[in-house]
């Protein structure tokens, strides 16, 4: 009893001590913004990261900021864009923060003047290619890789580069006929983004495309449809697959393998923006800082399989571990207006036309 009393008496002192010596992993948000956020008491996020993948992150955020009620809406990237743009036009309540894997659409929103500026104290720890004008913030470092069926593809056959893949397909055209899969650039935004990056980076892209066409590549709109079909053996290998989803799935499914291409590996990043019309601005800033802080990034790098972007965070799925493995072959897609090039209608249609011709589908 006495001990409890003593503890109760000491507790305030203890708490003050903790507050006075800041935790180096905690977000460095200014006390003023945190106070403002707690007063707002609410935060609305539209996100393409599904609630199950984001769960460890959201839970920890709730523990760190119990006074901010987080309303987390997960939907696909087109829905995030449609819903936000419509709500903004109607001038009615919308999200306080948009967190989407459609990098180009996020940049478009910022470029169209929908995003507000924020000097995040975490900026110094994030690579500069991931930040644009203090308006768009890359938060993850997700490898774009090959995913293959371990039962049906021998270990020595697994391609280690884009050139390897093409060699493998050319050597066994019958075996791979209809067995290769990827996103449909015509119907999927991320698929389009990745293939245009390939076109820019792969010196032999013309040949690559033609080979995909020859084996009759199967094109889909969702990761689920592709990985399930690779796992079952209906398809053997997929290219331009998002590594974070593949790794989450591999933890349960022994049939799936992932291979990081060594000639070049694209890296995508989930981009966050805070809309100008955000109602709970401070809360949005607190969430953004949290996403970029060591505390948030450690969860992405170890529990959520989202791949942390901070070089100073260690763990299984982190930029640090990928850099150690892959070195300079990593090709992050910069968060910058360069992404807008293909939002120009005529350039986009032209690219798609050329893609269809190379594939022989037109």
């Amino acid at each position, binding site marked *: 009893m006495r001990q409890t009393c003593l503890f109760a008496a000491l507790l305030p002192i203890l708490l003050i001590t903790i507050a006075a010596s800041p935790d180096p992993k905690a977000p460095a948000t200014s006390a003023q913004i945190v106070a403002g956020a707690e007063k707002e008491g609410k935060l609305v996020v539209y996100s393409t990261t*599904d*609630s*199950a*993948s984001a*769960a460890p992150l959201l839970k920890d955020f709730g523990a760190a900021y119990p006074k901010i009620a987080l*309303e*987390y*809406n*997960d*939907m*696909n990237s*087109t*829905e995030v*864009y*449609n819903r936000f743009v*419509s709500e903004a*036009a*109607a001038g*009615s309540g919308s999200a306080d923060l948009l967190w989407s894997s459609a990098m*180009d*659409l996020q940049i*478009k929103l910022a470029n169209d003047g929908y995003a507000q500026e924020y000097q995040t104290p975490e900026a110094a720890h994030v690579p500069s290619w991931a930040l644009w004008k203090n308006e768009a913030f890359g938060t993850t470092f997700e490898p774009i890789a090959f995913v293959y069926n371990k*039962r*049906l593809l021998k270990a020595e056959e697994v391609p280690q580069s884009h050139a390897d893949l093409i060699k493998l397909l050319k050597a066994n055209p019958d075996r791979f006929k*209809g067995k290769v899969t990827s996103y449909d650039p*015509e*119907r*999927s*935004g991320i698929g*389009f983004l990745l293939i245009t990056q390939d076109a820019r980076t792969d010196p032999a892209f013309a040949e690559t495309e033609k080979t995909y066409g020859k084996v009759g590549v*199967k*094109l*889909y*709109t*969702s*990761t*689920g*449809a*592709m*990985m*399930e*079909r690779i*796992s*079952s*053996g*209906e398809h053997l290998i997929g290219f331009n697959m998002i590594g974070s*989803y593949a790794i*989450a*799935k591999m933890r*349960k*499914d*022994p*049939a799936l393998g992932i291979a990081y291409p060594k000639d070049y590996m694209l890296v995508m990043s989930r981009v966050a923006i805070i809309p100008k019309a955000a109602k709970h601005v401070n809360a949005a800033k607190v969430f953004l800082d949290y996403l970029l802080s060591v505390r948030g990034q450690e969860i992405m790098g170890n529990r959520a399989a989202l791949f942390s972007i901070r070089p100073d965070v260690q763990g299984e799925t982190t930029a640090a571990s990928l850099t150690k493995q892959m070195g300079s072959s990593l090709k992050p897609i910069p968060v910058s207006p360069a992404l807008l090039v293909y*939002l*120009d*209608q005529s350039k*986009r249609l032209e690219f*798609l036309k050329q893609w269809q011709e190379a594939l022989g*589908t*037109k």
Partner: protein
Amino acid sequence: MRHAPQWHRILAVLITGTAVMLPLAIIVYQSLLDAPFFQPSAKLSLSAFRFVLTDGDFHRAFATTAILATGMTAVAVPLGAILAFLLVRTDLPGRNWLEPVVLIPIFLSPVVIAFGYVVAAGPVGFFTLWAKQVVGSAPWNIYTLLSLTLIAGFTHIPYVFLYTSSALRALGADVEEAASIAGAGAARIALTVSLPMVRPAILYSAVLVFFLGFEIFGLALVLGDPGGLLVLSTYLYKLTNRLGVPSYQLMAVVAVIIIAIAFPLVYLQRRLMGIASRFVTVAGKGFAQRPLRLGRLRWIAFGGVLFWLAATVLLPLSGVFLRAFVSAWGEGVRLTEVLTLENFRELSDYPNLVRGITNTLGIAVIGGALAVAWYAIVGLATHRWQSPWAKVMDYLVMVPRGMPGLIAGLAFLWVFLFVKPLSPLRSTLFSVWLAYSVVWLAYGMRLISSALLQIQPELEEAAAIIGAPGARVTRDVTVPLIRFGLLGSWLLVFMIFVREYSTGVYLLGPGTEVIGSLIVSLWGTGAIDIVAALSVVNVLLVAAGLAVALRLGVRLHG
């Protein structure tokens, strides 16, 4: 028979008309602009029509969709009508338990059914692998247009069955007995007497199925993608992405074109029904019906029904159930080594699972009841009403189902954003309910009207003659007489609402998740094992609900 004041009828039509016209008007307006309608820079223009109509992919998608819709109607309508005749009028074995089983394809999400087919009979499905061992190569390919049409036709048989069977029940058995006494066999009676007499119901279901064919999505996405089949609803994906940002004007054009198909269809249906009604006499059910004896045909017919059930329910469900209990499947997998309960354990940890299930059941049970109430009010208002207003309703109800889910969802978001008096309701479940109810108007209204048509006019006329005003006739005669019909309709609307999702996609938020939205977000990241487990739970829940309802005396038909 005429009731003096008609204002309440006109009011019911006007309210329903507004609910249908608001999303429709936004879509039509959007199709005539060159940018999103809410952008100040948007100008009137036919450029969207020009773009879509000159797009080779649109032509390809339209042709494929037309073949698909025609083919599935050609499959579903005759088979559904025969199924209804067999279950309602003959001594087919197992009639009682067959009826609820026949309805299963209605409440299953088409994406899940399609995926079940892939697991069971896809290129590396377990039945295909067995067949390969026996005959050496895969004897079928489920990714062709023919397979897609057959599967779509088979899974839409229940709609035809529903409307035809309730019409058959309302039909007096006297003519059939006369034919039987004159020596006609069961098959002849079906084709020359019974089915021609319920032609309006068959025609109605044909139009509905044809229309559902135009907005078919889940089946086409899962079974069409590997073969490169493009239908209108998957073509919309291209329009969303092709210009970089979603091009609402192009999507709206596609919706307008589909809706434009509705008008001649409904006109044709009304014409044919007008001719048909001269022959049809709906007599009372004063005497007990004796089922027609099928004789030798009895077991052949039973075998046919079982085959259809095996192909449409058992085959895809076996795929889904299997997927729920294994960690991997396909070529080179020994199923005994991969059995697991892990998927269910993981499902139980899924955030918001319980809330998703509760919300789905809530929207389906309570929302379903409210929808039936609305449909009943409109049904009663236009019941035996010879007026142009009633004619307008015939066209109106069919139109919303023509909007593909992808567009209907956006249209309802816009209604609740830009129609200011409605905007406070946007984040409430009312908005979701309204969207569901409007989209399924064609399905639900017909359930009500077939219940209403079973009442002999004499009963209402008798009440009117002794001086009861119109409202009183409705309250004391008509409604009590159709109460079992209403209960049955509630059950059927419940089943549709359980799986509906796309229309509400932009209106749902945290706290209002439904099973459909959980399935879609899991599917997106590749957690198909969990999708399968969730679908198993879904099937068991609805089956339990159905069993309880039937036990409690709710009949599928009044």
